[in-house]
């Protein structure tokens, strides 16, 4: 108690001292938040992506002549800490908009913060449908194709399979639950003859793969839907390969074609899975070539999907800021709604109706090539083609 005043003073002096390094007043600042320390495998390429974009934007003259500055913060994977960071960015750094986030719950926390404080927020990676639909708000936009869109893309391919008996394996949290729910719903609409015979819900990051694989094998499905990713996916694939779970069974899998998740599998990559992902090695479009060349020149490394997301987040933010010609949040919203811009995947639009971008994803099959996992027979699916009708979206989203 006695030492309280000095310590409080010291603590705040430290805090205040830390904020001395601000950018120049005439710069345009974007506040960026992501789970850098929790998910480095995804966020490191992401960071490289947005750094490249900042460089390109400023090399091309900045935003209406002003320099673009991105101030980046780590949220440690906790929604409460993300809000602290958001608050710092808005209150003391005076950023024009917030961007970033990876985990769905953090995206939602920041989106709620943005709604409350009336700040523009461009969610980069969270996949939850809630962020644009059931919990959507007018200040929040989202770049990546949502859970629903990725499910719809996979269903298109999966519904053509002859398999009738399906099992699901998904991490036991909101992302896994809603991915399975949407996939089941869309699938059963197209194929009423399908039976869902087993489901496994290992805890995220803690899969006990042996028993899970054995349990699924015992149900003897003809096809399997997988939603696990990261280290869980590695364990699942290894156990599945040894125990022959995937032999003679079709597998449809969310996100597995992304280099972040496919590359660690190396020579254990299972072949013939239908996946969403990012086959950077086989995309032959001028937009993507330009991005790939610039990225490889700067980092001497190949891009992951995170690189694309980071790059396009800042590119989109810059386009919105340039069009608005102001940092007023209402003007930014007006500028963003319906704005069309180029991306490495081709042109994308931020829809007015739900603030979802039409960035798509690649759907293809996994294969082994020179001891490495790759995506083959892949094709780009435009996001706009895999969203429900406007009437349905209007019902899903609360009125602003």
């Amino acid at each position, binding site marked *: 108690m006695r030492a309280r005043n000095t310590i409080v003073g010291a603590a705040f002096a430290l*805090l205040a001292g*830390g904020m001395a390094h601000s950018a120049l007043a005439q710069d345009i600042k974007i506040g960026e938040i992501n789970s850098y*320390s929790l998910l480095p*495998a995804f966020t490191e390429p992401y960071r490289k992506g947005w750094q490249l974009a900042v460089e390109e934007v400023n090399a091309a003259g900045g935003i209406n002549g002003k320099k673009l500055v991105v101030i980046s*913060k780590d949220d*440690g994977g906790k929604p409460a800490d993300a809000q602290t960071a958001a608050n710092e960015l808005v209150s003391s750094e005076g950023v024009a908009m917030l961007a970033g986030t990876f985990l769905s719950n953090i995206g939602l926390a920041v989106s709620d913060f943005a709604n409350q404080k009336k700040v523009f927020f461009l969610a980069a990676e969270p996949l939850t449908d809630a962020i644009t639909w059931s919990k959507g708000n007018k200040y929040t936009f989202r770049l990546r194709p949502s859970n629903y869109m990725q499910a719809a893309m996979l269903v298109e391919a999966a519904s053509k399979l002859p398999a009738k008996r399906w099992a699901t394996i998904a991490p*036991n949290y909101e992302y896994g639950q809603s991915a399975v729910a949407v996939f089941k719903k869309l699938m059963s609409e197209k194929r009423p003859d399908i039976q869902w015979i087993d489901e496994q819900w290992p805890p995220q990051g803690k899969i006990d793969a042996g028993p899970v694989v054995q349990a699924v094998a015992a149900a003897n499905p003809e096809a399997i839907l997988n939603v696990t990713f990261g280290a869980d996916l590695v364990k699942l694939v290894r156990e599945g390969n040894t125990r022959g779970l995937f032999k003679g069974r079709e597998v449809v899998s969310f996100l597995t074609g992304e280099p972040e998740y496919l590359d660690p599998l*190396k020579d254990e990559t299972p072949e013939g899975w239908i996946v969403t992902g990012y086959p950077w090695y086989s995309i032959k479009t001028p937009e993507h070539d330009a991005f790939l060349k610039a990225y490889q020149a700067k980092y001497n490394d190949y891009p992951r999907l995170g690189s694309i997301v980071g790059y396009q987040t800042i590119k989109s933010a810059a386009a919105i800021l340039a069009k608005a010609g102001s940092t007023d949040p209402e003007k930014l919203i007006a500028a963003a709604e319906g704005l069309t811009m180029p991306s490495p995947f081709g042109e994308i639009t931020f829809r007015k109706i739900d603030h979802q971008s039409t960035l798509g994803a690649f759907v293809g099959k996994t294969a082994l090539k020179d001891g490495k996992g790759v995506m083959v027979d892949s094709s780009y699916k435009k996001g706009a083609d895999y969203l429900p009708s406007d009437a349905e979206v209007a019902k899903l989203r609360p009125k602003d």
Partner: protein
Amino acid sequence: MAFYVVQFLTGLASAASLFLVASGLSIIFGVTRIVNFAHGAFYMIGAYIAFTLTERLSGAFGFWGGIVLAAFAVALIGVIVEMVLLRRIYHAPELFQLLATFGLTLMVEDLVVLIWGPDDLVGRRAPGFRGAIDFFGQNIPSYDLFLIVLGPVVLGILWLLFQRTRWGVLVRAATQDRDMVAALGVNQKWLFTSVFAVGVFLAALGGALQIPRDAVHHAMDLRIIVEVFVVVVIGGLGSIVGAFVAAVLVSELNAFGILIFPKISIILVFLVMAVVLIVRPWGLFGKPEAAARKTPGLTVNPWRPLTSNERLMALAALIVAAMLPLFAGNYLLTVGSEIAIFVIFAVSLHFLMSVGGLASFGHAAYFGLGAYGIAFLAKMAGLPMIVCLLLGPLLGCMGAAVFGFFAVQLSGVYFAMLTLAFAQIVWSIAFQWVDVTGGDNGILGLWPSSWAASPSRFYWLSLGVAALVTVALRTMVFSPFGYALRATRDSVLRSEAIGIDAKRIQWTAFVIAGTTAGIGGALFAYLKGSVFPDNLGISLSVDALVMVLLGGVETVSGAVIGAIIYKALNIWLVSQTDLSKLVLGGFIMLIVVVFPKGIVGTLEMLAQRRKKASPPGSTLLAKPIESAE
């Protein structure tokens, strides 16, 4: 039928790897009484080093040699950690070593990413154990069979080591009564170091052996550490056989549980632990703890209320803090509110730990329940903020009343682990019951009413409540209730002999602490405008423990300082550096070595010493009562 046999064998294989790590933890705890939070970190380093070695060295010999070499290398690291860090703090208050190992864990998590990069690493398969064996149409991976054999073999070796060697006899003796072992002239230093080395070796071996089945990544430690603690406690602390049985029990229940309830894995171990501890308070194979020879939570300087001068100083400090809105911006005020809220949270745990001698590992449950209380009242009942703030903490109170009743039947680490189990059960309810709690997407839109909405007003509100709570709890410490509670802490037998109903007093303290934490949680919900299962999670409980230990567990209000320093530093570091865990972990380890009684505890001790040094002659009276009984 074949399927059930194979499922059983698969469970056994999972049990084997769990057992390896758990046995190491159990041995370390049994002898040194260190709650080794870094055990998961050693497991992870074992996997990383084994990955590097097995990639470099070729052939079957290279693989197996690499695994064993990695385990030895990590054991060496363990020896260094023990000699440089832990040796200095064996005489610190109970659980203080947890702080050191927590700091170490934080550092390791950043270090492995710095050294090995951010990507998940997938190692080689074990030569000779790549495929599977056909068992009536079911496949059993041969590596699983290897693990199934390895588990009992390690158990057997450990048994021989403990029963047939002099070292083993000493270890068993120390587990039972380490003071007596020391009194008989055994060199404790080297006994502790060797035990720590063996424990770390087992953890690293467990990690290294995961290479053919798992991916190596920087979050492996957290994935295993809690589960391993649970296994050790179910089995009974210090019992190797118990750890083995518990590992098998947990793994088999999981293997068969998912066939009926696919969502059970998330909570299973904690359910099992709660049931086991309620039925058998010392685990399956544990023995009742011997009566403590030392007074727990020994207060070298008897506690006393503040003098009037000190009261004035505290008041002045409060006034200075209240003037913050005059010169600070919105961000600083919000950080100030957050720190004030964590002061509430920390003092509530401090009350339970230092006054009651009951260290809870699941205190976040009541903090989170208070926050969810707000969410339910505000979102579902639509009540105004002031009513919510008054009623919300009641949910924390009710939770504490129910869980506290069972928890206070136990003591020491068993008490701590039962509170952890309850917290995890509450967490999984919040996580799973999506219709009511929104699952991990939480409940949004809980912003304060206009009268408290501005950052300065909310800061004043939080600061005022924090001051009130601190004063109220201090008053309670020096009330008859507080004395009774301290009596139960210092000696249950004696306090019962003079007619104190120990369990009832402790239960009351538990409810008070839970309700106070609930108040903190209620304010937190309004500060953040949202509630997530995170608010009930293990990491928050650990944060609270760290704050209390940092302040000094033997002080009356050290947690206030601990909370301010830890929270301010944490927020500042996360904002300023990408390596916040590395710096924070290093800072914590430094504090541990410099302030072995916590910051406030050590400062008080120094002040006391200076006072005593001046009047010579009164040494006999002033001499600290090192061993009360």
